């Protein structure tokens, strides 16, 4: 009787272990993060701290000097994906007659998801002679 109970409990234990193991193996494998890729995001705000909609955020690759642009939406957010961890970048923002200070995303910044918020300041006007046809 005792033997039978022992056998049943062992069997139950084994079954539980197998199902737990199966669950563990079925778990979706997370892709290892590529250590050479990072992203940058942030919020562009007006001098009164409210989000700036329609601000142009420019990200300059200091190796190739290429510039990538982004136009912020209602929440003032911007983001740049697939940036290299081995390259320095410069980011700044322009909106109407305002512009923000230029901030640097350095190779020494170890964050994979860096956050740089930009604050627009009046007076730092950028020459803009855009006109519509």
């Amino acid at each position, binding site marked *: 009787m005792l033997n039978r109970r022992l056998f049943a409990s062992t069997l139950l234990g084994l079954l539980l272990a197998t199902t737990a193991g199966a669950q563990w193996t079925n778990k979706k494998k997370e892709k290892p993060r590529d250590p050479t890729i990072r992203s940058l995001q942030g919020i562009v705000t007006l001098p009164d701290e409210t989000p700036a*909609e*329609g601000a*142009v955020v*420019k990200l300059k690759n200091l190796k190739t*000097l*290429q*510039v*990538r*642009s*982004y*136009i*912020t*939406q209602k929440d003032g957010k911007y983001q740049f994906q697939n940036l290299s961890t081995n390259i320095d970048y410069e980011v700044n923002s322009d909106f109407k007659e305002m512009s923000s200070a230029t901030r640097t995303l350095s190779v020494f910044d170890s964050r994979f998801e860096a956050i740089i918020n930009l604050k627009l300041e009046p007076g730092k006007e950028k020459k*803009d*002679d*855009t*006109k*519509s*046809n």
Partner: protein
Amino acid sequence: MPRAVIAGTVFRDPGFAAAGALALLTALEPPAGEKRFRPQKVHTTARGEFFFYVPATPARYRVTASYSGHEAQEQAVEIHGEERVDLTFNLKPLVKPVK
């Protein structure tokens, strides 16, 4: 021969990249030493980006960006030497007249 780069990104309101938009480069004041500047025309990439190579001599250019169903925009660019100038266009949709 040293060159300058006029590059830019074309967006369509409210900030989507305008892929396949047309960017046209014409000279307002041709580069020094050239009587005539042949206009250049390119389509933007999937990110809405374009670039033109121009001689690295002082000149003034006009870049016009146009995209189907949107108002065209133009910007004047001054080139002084071997440099890179970046422009941004945010094209507004054409307003259809109310019948």
